[in-house]
């Protein structure tokens, strides 16, 4: 089962592995990313970033969707991690069921404006987030599980 569906442009890092990992104790992180999955050194980098606390499985978006749909991870507690709003929307449009997405980290970058302390988005990304909201999905913006839960649905319209 998917314990957490998270958007974080830093992918697998301490906040995810230690911050969320210790709180929710997943069996595995599934990183669904076309770039990382197709580059050997990036795959190794992010797989190593999860160890020793957690196991990371790096897949392309399509592979991740197919494996989840086929029930490969049904008996495990997993985090599903994607890098940004576009990636999340693509997974949803493939048919991934989701009620809620944790927008955990979209960091400052040229063109992005602040939505919350840890969430910054440019116009194109806001449009994508609006598409996600239209599907009835709640976007909550916590970097860490102990942070105050802030729903940002109304902040992207």
């Amino acid at each position, binding site marked *: 089962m998917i314990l957490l569906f998270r958007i974080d442009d830093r992918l697998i890092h*301490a906040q995810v592995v230690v911050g969320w990992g210790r709180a929710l104790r997943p069996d595995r992180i599934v990183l669904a990313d076309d770039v990382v999955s197709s580059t050997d*050194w990036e795959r190794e980098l992010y797989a190593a*970033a999860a160890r020793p606390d957690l196991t990371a499985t790096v897949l392309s978006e399509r592979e991740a969707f197919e494996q989840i749909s086929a029930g490969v991870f049904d008996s495990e507690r997993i985090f599903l991690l994607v890098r940004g709003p576009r990636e999340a929307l693509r997974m949803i449009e493939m048919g991934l069921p989701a009620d809620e997405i944790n927008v955990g980290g979209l960091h400052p970058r040229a063109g992005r404006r602040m939505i919350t302390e840890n969430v910054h988005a440019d116009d194109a990304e806001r449009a994508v987030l609006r598409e996600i909201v239209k599907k009835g999905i709640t976007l909550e913006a916590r970097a860490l599980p102990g942070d105050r839960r802030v729903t940002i649905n109304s902040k992207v319209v």
Partner: protein
Amino acid sequence: MEKGCIIGIVITHGNLAEELLATAKMIVGETHDCYAISGSDLCDEDVARRIDQIVSTGDGERRAVVFVDYFGGSCSASTVRATRSHPEIRVISGVNLPMLLDFVNKQDTYGLDEIVDHLLHRGQESIRVVKF
């Protein structure tokens, strides 16, 4: 190519890098060719740009050791990304004060791979139970 001493760059979350360097200066007096970067405030491109700025000279690149705080952290990912194409840069994670002090002591006289061996050893041996 050898051109001057080895540069030290410390990249960590928050102010750790600055404070580590400031603390090292308290102990050894002055340092040279050492830089602190708060990696958690910067995006990958900025980290890459800062490293490039530091190591590039008009005519080639200087040798450098980049110290990051945490293996697998976002600073370590940005740093790996930024340094993969630089053959004269080595990256070490888990930076601690004794390691940094050892670096300051050796950056003028040691070779790059030699200094890395020393730094790993020094950093690790300094982690011990203190009891007398």
